[in-house]
């Protein structure tokens, strides 16, 4: 068994070594690798330095991003703080403005009321030309509450109609404060006509369609969250307040506009909003008027709930809030509030986005830097490991497997080349000595094989002779069988002739059947003629009955006409009154007669209809009989045709039987030939048998010659053995593995 395995392996080796010489292949591979390395050196453009700079840039951008994020975190606190402050400031300043304006106005009004000449002098004075213009304008436009004038210095002048007196009052220098730096003032000033907000002009868009100048007042407030505006003539406003509020909501795009209005002229209007009250208490409770209003509204029992909004009606309401002097001159209060969230929320959203972006950037940078460090360090560690292994003598290891496109890659490539060259030299030595060894081994084992196969050859030849004999016997059998077949064919032929005679008899019987069917066709044709005559008579009956029906229809028509005449006659009789009574009886009788004749005509028509129906039914039956006859004759004709066909087929059969008989005799001839061939085969087989014996003798002589070559090879192999032991100190990759060389040693021992 062991020998066989070894032999198989040797054979495989033989096939491999034949395909390519191992030494030449090794040298070629080395030179190829060197060429590749040189080409790569030119192509390598990306260095470690470049990689480092890219990393640095990424790191810097990441750092800046994080810095920005942290800055925005700080900024957010600042913004939220300052925005709240600003809101408070602006609302507070407006509150103060209102307070000052109130007191100043009260003073001025008192002066005006005490001295009416002053107003007249105003009118005459050229200095107040502008005032007169507004006076005229406001008088002719009762829907306008008033006009604000803003001058270049930032001072505010207010023209309001005082509708109770019918005069227009101008207020100059309401406060000493300069509003030129206020954002709402700037916005107003930037419009095309900064001195005057005319009726029906939108400041923002320049569109017309404003109901009153209230919008001109309110628009600046859009840019100042939370402020107060005073104005007069609340009666008018309160009538129109809902429309105005809705309009404000649409035009200012502020969701939470709340208009709070108190009117001295009779109506106090207030929308309750918990937030707003809280705001008022915090920001403007220092103003006595407002604090009074709040406390009153919170504690009042005379509130009316209408659509979830509270209204306090009655003139007395104002008296409770304001002192009598103020009530005279102060008509209303409008407060417009912008939503705090409207201002802050976009900023907050921006901050959230920035924080998310920053965190994503940090994550990205950290992963990139980790991967870069890993790429630089890992190859160096690998090189160190592999070099120590090479030092121990294992030359099959490569310094670095990864073909890195950096300085480390070049270093690893150089070391790889060195190791490969050393490895190549040693492996060449080992390989060449091994090859010699292998060749001699093969030769040795080849000899044994030749011996063995020659003895096997002898045995095979003997077996062949025996099988040839068996073959001869079977050929004889075939010969016998073909003889028997020959006899069988002869008897077949006789039976065929008997069959032919019976065919002729059936032919005669067929002729009789044909005659009978021809007679049947003739008799059915006669029946058809009789039926035609009958149906002709039927047609005559139905035609005459149609004529009768026509006559009856005429009778019916006459009866109908008579009936109509009778009806009209009875109408005439009725018109004649008492004189027509007798005539009406006659008319009645006539109509009865007409009806009876109509009825009998109908009955006749009915009877005729029935007769026609019956005639038609019998006609149908005759038709069906005709079709039956027709079918019989066609069937008979078909039968005749089929009989003729059968005759033709019988003749064909006859012919075929005759042919079969002929063929049977041919088969018999063939069988004879087969028997002859079988005999010839038999002779040839016997000749082969004698040839085999001679071949056997020659092979035996061959075996003894081979044994002398065996001894010479044994001595040659001993010497190569010592060379191999020396070379095995190095670990080298050779085509045949180490285990194989060990096995080879065992084989050699066995052979010795």
């Amino acid at each position, binding site marked *: 068994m062991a020998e066989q395995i070894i032999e198989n392996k040797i054979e495989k080796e033989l096939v491999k070594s034949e395909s390519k010489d191992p030494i030449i292949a090794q040298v070629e591979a080395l030179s190829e690798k060197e060429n590749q390395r040189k080409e790569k050196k030119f192509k390598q453009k990306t260095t470690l330095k470049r990689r480092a700079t890219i990393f640095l840039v990424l790191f810097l951008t990441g750092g800046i991003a994080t810095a920005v994020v942290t800055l925005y975190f700080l900024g957010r606190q600042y913004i939220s703080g300052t925005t709240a402050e600003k809101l408070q400031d602006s609302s507070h300043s407006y509150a103060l403005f209102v307070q000052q304006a109130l007191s100043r106005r009260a003073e001025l009004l008192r002066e005006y009321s005490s001295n009416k000449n002053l107003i007249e002098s105003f009118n005459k004075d050229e200095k107040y030309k502008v005032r007169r213009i507004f006076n005229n304008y406001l008088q002719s436009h009762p829907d306008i509450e008033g006009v604000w004038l803003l001058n270049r210095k930032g001072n505010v002048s207010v023209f309001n109609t005082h509708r109770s007196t019918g005069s227009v009052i101008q207020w100059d220098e309401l406060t000493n404060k300069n509003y030129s730096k206020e954002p709402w003032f700037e916005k107003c000033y930037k419009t095309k006509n900064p001195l005057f907000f005319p009726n029906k002009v939108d400041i923002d868009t320049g569109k017309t369609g404003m109901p009153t100048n209230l919008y001109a007042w309110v628009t600046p407030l859009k840019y100042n969250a939370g402020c107060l505006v005073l104005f007069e003539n609340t009666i008018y406003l309160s009538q129109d307040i809902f429309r105005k509020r809705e309009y404000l909501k649409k035009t200012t795009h502020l969701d939470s506009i709340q208009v709070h209005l108190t009117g001295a002229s009779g109506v106090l209007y207030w929308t309750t909003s918990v937030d707003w009250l809280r705001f008022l208490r915090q920001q403007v409770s220092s103003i006595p008027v407002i604090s009074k209003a709040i406390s009153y509204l919170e504690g009042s029992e005379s509130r009316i709930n209408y659509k979830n909004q509270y209204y306090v009606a009655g003139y007395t309401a104002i008296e409770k809030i304001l002192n009598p002097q103020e009530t005279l001159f102060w008509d209303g209060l409008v407060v417009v509030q912008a939503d705090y969230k409207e201002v802050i929320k976009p900023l907050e959203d921006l901050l959230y986005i920035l924080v998310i972006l920053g965190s994503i950037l940090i994550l990205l940078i950290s992963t990139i830097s980790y991967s870069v460090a890993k790429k630089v360090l890992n190859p160096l560690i690998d090189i160190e490991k592999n070099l120590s292994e090479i030092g121990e003598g294992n030359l099959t290891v490569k310094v670095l497997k990864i073909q890195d496109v950096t300085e480390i890659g070049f270093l690893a490539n150089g070391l790889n080349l060195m190791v490969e060259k050393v490895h190549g030299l040693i492996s060449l030595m080992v390989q060449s000595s091994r090859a010699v060894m292998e060749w001699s081994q093969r030769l040795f084992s080849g000899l044994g094989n030749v011996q063995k196969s020659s003895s096997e050859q002898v045995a095979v030849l003997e077996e062949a002779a025996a099988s040839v004999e068996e073959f001869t016997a079977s050929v004889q059998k075939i010969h016998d069988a073909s003889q028997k077949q020959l006899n069988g064919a002869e008897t077949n032929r006789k039976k065929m002739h008997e069959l032919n005679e019976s065919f002729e008899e059936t032919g005669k019987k067929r002729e009789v059947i044909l005659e009978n069917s021809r007679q049947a066709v003739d008799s059915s044709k006669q029946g058809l003629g009789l039926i035609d005559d009958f149906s002709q008579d039927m047609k005559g009956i139905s035609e005459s009955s149609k004529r009768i029906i026509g006559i009856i229809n005429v009778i019916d028509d006459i009866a109908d006409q008579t009936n*109509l005449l009778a*009806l*009209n006659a*009875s*109408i005439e009789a*009725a018109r004649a009154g008492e004189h027509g009574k007798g005539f009406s009886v006659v008319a009645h009788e006539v*109509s009865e007669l007409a009806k009876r004749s109509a009825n009998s005509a109908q009955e006749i028509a009915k009877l005729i209809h029935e007769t026609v129906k019956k005639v038609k039914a019998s006609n149908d039956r005759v038709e069906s009989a005709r079709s039956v006859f027709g079918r019989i004759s066609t069937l008979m004709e078909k039968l005749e045709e089929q009989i003729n066909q059968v005759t033709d087929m019988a003749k064909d059969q006859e012919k075929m039987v005759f042919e079969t008989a002929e063929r049977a005799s041919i088969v018999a001839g063939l069988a004879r030939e087969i028997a002859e061939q079988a005999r010839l085969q038999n002779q040839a087989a016997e000749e082969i048998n004698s040839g085999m014996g001679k071949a056997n003798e020659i092979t035996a002589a061959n075996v003894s010659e081979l044994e002398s070559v065996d001894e010479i090879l044994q001595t040659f192999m001993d010497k190569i053995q010592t060379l191999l032991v020396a070379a095995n100190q190095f670990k080298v990759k050779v085509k045949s593995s180490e285990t194989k060389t060990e096995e080879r040693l065992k084989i050699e021992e066995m052979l010795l």
Partner: protein
Amino acid sequence: MPSNDNMFSPDRIYQKKKEKAVASSEIVQIIVFSVGNEDYGLEIEKVQEIIRMRTIKHLPHTPDFILGVMNLRGNIIPVVGLREKFGMEKIEYTEFTRLIVVNHKNKLVAMVVDEVNKVVNVPIGNIEGNPDMVSDSTRALVRGVANLDDLVIILVELDYLLYSIDELAAGIE
């Protein structure tokens, strides 16, 4: 059922006529005609004559039930379709279709009916007033119901049927 106090309600009018009829004679002659599946009746005094269907000239801008006008011995008279007037389905004219020419307020008007059956003599006692269950619009149309053996005849109110004809007839003349 509210009581009929109205002086001009059809019930009242018929009641008065009935009283008159009782005074003069006890038999009323009624021409029986059919529209759809129902038998209707009309007092013979109101009928001028009964004729077969003949060609009708259609008039533009008239209500549905005014079929047009026809020539009756040189007179142009309006034609009213009773099927259309009663809101029934329109059908093709048959050999039984008749025109009843009535004398309405001294003007002749022809009415298209499905069939004229006969003239019947009805004792005045067999004629009853309006049935209770009919609606107001039907009340205007129905004068009463005549009961003769197994036959029930609805007597139609000519005033209601032809009230819109008056203006038209005036226009034609």
